[in-house]
């Protein structure tokens, strides 16, 4: 059984391909790390798989449902932390979580109880009454994760979930996610730049470069005898030149 299956999924912007002929398979219960340099097409792929973007060509099935045919059925069963987040800045953290739960079909009472539990689990209780617009970036990320989890999705899409979150919180969230996958409760599709964290978390890996899939498979198969970082750099950096030194840096101190 596949949680995600894409066939030649393509998205172009003004004729320029952002994702080109992407074909991946993510098994149910996998913790899938989707890696790539900036602008490689990671966020575009998540947007295509969650219905934020329409594909230019190809098809995608999520949890066995064709996205083009019944997007609402897919949306009910997935949770998403998108790039740029999806938070209402004029609601308090507690209101955001509870209303988000209700929008996903939870009863108000259940949504309220889960919102309070998530606020505690994500260490946001103290700021629960603050408007989201006043939250720091890391707090917003944690709240967005809470929103993605509140309705108990079968598949979780996380776009850079650890960016801007402190190390202690990263550790707590990492344990929570590992536990969810270990219990067979969820499949997770995650993008991240923090390769050490990804390597400790994921069971499967895909590496995208310039919109095209460059490597794909189980973690062990992709990294072989090396580390994930070595494979990643080898895969994405082969067409990059060395960085030229900026000779003028430090001039001001020298002339003082």
């Amino acid at each position, binding site marked *: 059984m596949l949680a995600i299956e894409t066939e030649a999924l393509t*998205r172009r912007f003004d004729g320029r391909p952002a994702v080109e002929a992407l074909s991946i398979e993510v098994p149910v219960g996998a913790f899938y790390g989707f890696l790539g340099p900036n602008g490689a097409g990671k966020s575009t792929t998540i947007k295509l798989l969650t219905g*934020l973007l329409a594909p230019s060509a190809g098809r995608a099935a999520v949890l066995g449902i064709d996205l083009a045919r019944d997007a609402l059925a897919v949306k009910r069963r997935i949770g998403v932390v*998108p790039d740029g987040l999806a938070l209402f800045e*004029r*609601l*308090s953290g507690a209101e955001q979580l509870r*209303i988000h739960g209700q929008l996903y079909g939870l009863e108000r009472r259940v949504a309220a109880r889960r919102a309070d539990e998530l606020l505690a689990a994500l260490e946001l209780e103290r700021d629960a009454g603050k408007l989201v*617009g006043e939250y720091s970036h890391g707090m917003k990320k944690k709240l967005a994760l809470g929103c993605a989890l509140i309705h108990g999705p079968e598949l979780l899409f996380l776009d850079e979930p650890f960016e801007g979150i402190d190390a202690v919180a990263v550790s707590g969230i990492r344990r929570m996610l590992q536990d969810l996958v270990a219990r067979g409760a969820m499949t997770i599709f995650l993008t991240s730049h923090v390769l050490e964290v990804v390597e400790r978390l994921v069971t499967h890996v895909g590496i995208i470069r310039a919109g095209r899939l460059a490597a794909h498979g189980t973690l062990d198969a992709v990294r072989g005898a090396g580390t994930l970082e070595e494979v990643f750099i080898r895969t994405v950096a082969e067409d990059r030149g060395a960085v030229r030194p900026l000779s003028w840096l430090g001039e001001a101190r020298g002339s003082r």
Partner: protein
Amino acid sequence: MSAPGGRAPRVPVDALGAFAELRFRLIWRRLRGRQGIPELVARIVLFVVAIPAGLAFAALAGVGAFSAARAGHGLQADVAVAAVFFGVWQTWTAVALSLSEREGLDLRRMLVYPLPPARLFGYGVLSSVVGDPFSVFWCLVLGGAFVGGALARPGAWVGLLALAYALFVLATVALVALLQETLARALRGRRARVLAIATVYLGTAGLVAWAGGRPAALLQALRALRALRWAAFPAAFAHAAVTSLYGGRPLAALPWLAAHAAGAAGAGYLAYRLALAAALAGDGGAPRAAASGAAGWRLPGRMGALLEKEAKYLLRHPLATLLALILPALAGLVAWRVAPRIPVEAGEVVRALPLLAFALYAHVAAQIFWLNAFGWERGGGRTWFLAPIPAAEVILAKNACAYAFSLALFAASAGVGIAIAGAPPGWALVAAVALHAGIAPWLLGAGNLVSILNPRAAPLTVQRGGALSPLSSLAGMAIFSAAAAVFSAPVLLALRLDRPWVLVGLWAALGLAGAAGYLVLLPRTARLLERHREALLEAVAGDEE
């Protein structure tokens, strides 16, 4: 860190030049818009409407000033000068507080640069004169008045007259900046906003109760508060200085001009200190709301959640507070000054027109909420396409809340009007409600298309309504004009037949037709929203690829 010798470090001219260029480019881009030719054309059309109006007002002001300067003194000079300065000051301030954007004065963005914040703020205040089309309009009117006065009696005193007008402009922008900073600080908390609204409403009710429905008593009370005009010091000082100049007493004008300059500098300095304190305070005193999942409104289900979110978003928008304060006050003014002057012979329908006008105006005042319904959501807008919610329900919830808000504005305005001018006939009340409800589906249905096809990211933290693009403003004008034309036809019929109840029947029928059309259009509008999701998210949430 100070420079050797304890002197303040000099700011490189290049840095200030770069800042001036930044301000200029931001203003230019705002004027030019982001949507190319259609937005440019819309802006030109708006200017084509506004410039002749501005020139006409300038010519009128010029003629008035010419006569006043020729008269020299007496009621003719006094009234004309007061009308120009108090009129321009009042409208400039009201428009600036409700419509202008405040980007130029937001020090938070600028503190990162190694430039003196006082100077940055000063430039921001000055650029608000040239960068804001409304300010340019008022300057045009003032220019007309100045030219009229100067042509009436050419001479050396014209230099002082020019100084008086320049000081008036500077003092007005400085006082507007001070009011903006004070209001932004005072209305930041929900309790403060509620308290401000309650104070104004209870104060009005108290005044009306005290006057016992006798407008003469209200007039007396307002005369007793005449000293309050000095709070509008830019107009009061300019009025005193210019009447002295028109009266041929330039020496008598000098203290007023000096007071004017001191007042402008003082207001500007206070505004700067408040802006700097706000910028440095960061999150201090941030507004708070429900801190637990169980708190909040008890509306069940998905639609309940949608309505709660929309209503809270709307009520927490500073402009909602401002409209709740301004509209009933305006209605009170109309009921006090205009309604009693309509003769009984004009007929019941004509006498009910102020009430009916407010039924329409409540929709116009709330138009930014139905012409740019997704603008304030920014990243939150992604939720509508990520969550399993039919787009039609999202649109319906937005429309329901915008309508409820407009209805509340109308109810408050009508209540104040009735308290001051007395109760209108029963048919007029029913007709006003029928008009307000009947025109709503027409406006909201058309407004949805504008919201989807021309969305614009709107600021959340400032009390501004300047969130509509020129194209949306123009579309709003067209939609409202068309709907108002359709709904004004029954008025002509009622006047001709002298049957006021015709209005109720016809407006209810038009409303039902509008509601049917709205319901037929809703699924198509929802599909349009789905199709345009990428462009909408790009505009309001900054999503590209």
